[in-house]
């Protein structure tokens, strides 16, 4: 019989489905801490999803948890998944090597909690505001001071309470502009944080503690933030209230509309028809495509288009457009909104049966 350590509150993790976005200084430490804690307590997760766009480099051995020579050159998601499986062989781990804004929305849908371990405000806005909040998934987001101070920050964002951008000001939005690459096909190289692994480990530990409290007590506690300074032994906790002047619309999309046909054979006309069935009396319908519809304004990513704007392309297959099987297309009609679900499992099963 294996000896089990007693880990306070470990049972709240049982069967939970988690997503970790970003596997750098904080994220690489977080998945290992999580796996070890659950292995020690004998608790099994339902699912662990990992997403990161970059690969392990030799320099990452200094301040990230990738210290094996054979990991260099491998995607971080695969290296981290391998380590988790070595500690918890029975946990289901899914990986995706992609930018957050390219990851299909459905990948975030059936998740109990997201961990944000990201290196830019733009990525945080994408994860928290454009993905998790819309799908009603809480996020525990961590950050470190990149300037060498031992200062860490953990922010818990619960949909319905204060959002990520409720604490943002002009300086944050200016910072987002600086993070945007000049060339349309270009992207900023991953920010290599100067924070030591010690700080990443500390933030990861605080994030896990916040997540355990959230999973155990539910979302009633609302959004909050913890900032700590390891060098000076200070810790500041604050509850975040929704800001009246926040620029985010705070809309959580509750309704789901099945497409009725599988992704491979469906066309844009099917999407329009599904939306018109759902919003029969809503009048002017609008559609938001996650990666845009065409490569020119006003058809770019996350732009609202009217049904009439889509007619010229209505006979095109979804597979020909910048869409993926797990994507969601947001529909707005009057005061209501909904997601059209592109991976309609029942429709696929029905087609297979025929």
């Amino acid at each position, binding site marked *: 019989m294996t000896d089990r350590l007693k880990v306070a509150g470990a049972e709240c993790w049982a069967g939970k489905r988690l997503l970790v976005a970003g596997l750098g200084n904080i994220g690489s430490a977080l998945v290992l801490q999580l796996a070890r804690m659950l292995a020690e307590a004998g608790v099994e997760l339902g699912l662990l999803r990992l997403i990161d766009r970059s690969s392990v480099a030799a320099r990452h051995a200094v301040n990230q948890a990738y210290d094996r020579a054979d990991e260099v050159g491998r995607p971080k998601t695969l290296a981290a998944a391998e380590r988790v499986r070595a500690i918890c062989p029975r946990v289901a781990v899914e990986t995706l090597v992609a930018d957050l804004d390219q990851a299909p929305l459905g990948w975030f849908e059936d998740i109990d909690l997201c961990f944000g371990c990201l290196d830019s405000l733009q990525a945080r*806005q994408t994860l928290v*505001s454009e993905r998790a909040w819309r799908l009603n998934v809480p996020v525990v987001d961590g950050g470190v001071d990149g300037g060498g101070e031992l200062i860490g920050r953990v922010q818990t964002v619960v949909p319905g309470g204060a959002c990520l*951008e409720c604490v943002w000001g*002009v300086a944050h*939005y*200016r910072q*987002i*502009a*600086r993070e*945007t*690459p*000049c*060339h*349309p096909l*270009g992207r900023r190289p991953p920010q290599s944080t100067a924070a030591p692994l010690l700080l990443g480990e500390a933030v990861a530990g605080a994030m896990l503690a916040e997540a355990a409290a959230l999973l155990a007590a539910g979302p009633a506690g609302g959004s909050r933030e913890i900032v700590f300074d390891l060098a000076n032994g200070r810790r500041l906790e604050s509850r975040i209230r929704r800001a009246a002047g926040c*620029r*985010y*619309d705070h809309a959580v999309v509750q309704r789901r509309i099945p497409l009725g046909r599988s992704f491979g054979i469906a066309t844009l006309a099917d999407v329009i028809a599904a939306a018109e069935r759902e919003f029969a009396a809503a009048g002017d319908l*609008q559609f938001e495509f996650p990666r845009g519809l065409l490569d020119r*304004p*006003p058809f*770019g990513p*996350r*732009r*609202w288009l*009217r049904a*009439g*704007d889509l007619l010229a392309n209505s006979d095109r297959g979804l597979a020909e457009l910048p869409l993926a099987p797990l994507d969601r297309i947001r529909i707005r009609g009057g005061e209501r909104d909904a997601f059209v679900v592109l991976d309609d499992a029942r429709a696929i099963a029905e087609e297979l049966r025929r």
Partner: protein
Amino acid sequence: MTGIVTYQPDECQNAVDLLLVTQSLPQPQYDAVTGDFLRHSHRECAARLAEGDGLVQVVSLGRTVPWLFRLSFRTRGLARDAAGQVQPWDDHTIALRFLPDYLRRAQHFEMLQYVGPREPAPFHPNICPHTGAICLEIYPGEELLEIVYSLHDLLRWRLRQFSETDALNRDACSYGRNLVAQPTDDRPLLGRRFRLEFLESAK
């Protein structure tokens, strides 16, 4: 409380205006906060431009909300003709669009386009001579007048991309590193009208 801000679009003055309006249809829907922001921003810019002669003309082409603009600059920049000759050039027309989520997200490729002239082609590291795409750092919620100033600085080479790998025109990037040490135009964007007042001599 700002009160009701009325907005009156400018008349289409030329074929370029008509083309911009046609290409930019349909006008997106704006919430009340963004609509008010755009009206206020346009009013502030118009008031500043009315103070005196400048190097820019700002024409608002949006129907109900000032979201679409033609900006015509007389800033002296550089252009390259079909023979490859780089020459000073002081006629630039740029389209500017403010999209409905502008207070949270500002994507410069969706917002800005160099309309003309294309022959000679604009010659600048941050302007694609083929597509007219412009790379300019715009932050969400930036005022119209600030963007106009930034474009002036870009056209006169005060703002430019120094990294060839991230530039929209690598030739211009290389050219500028070797040959452009100072801004190509040192005139202010918005001058002040020079007033002569003659005092009647005492009789």
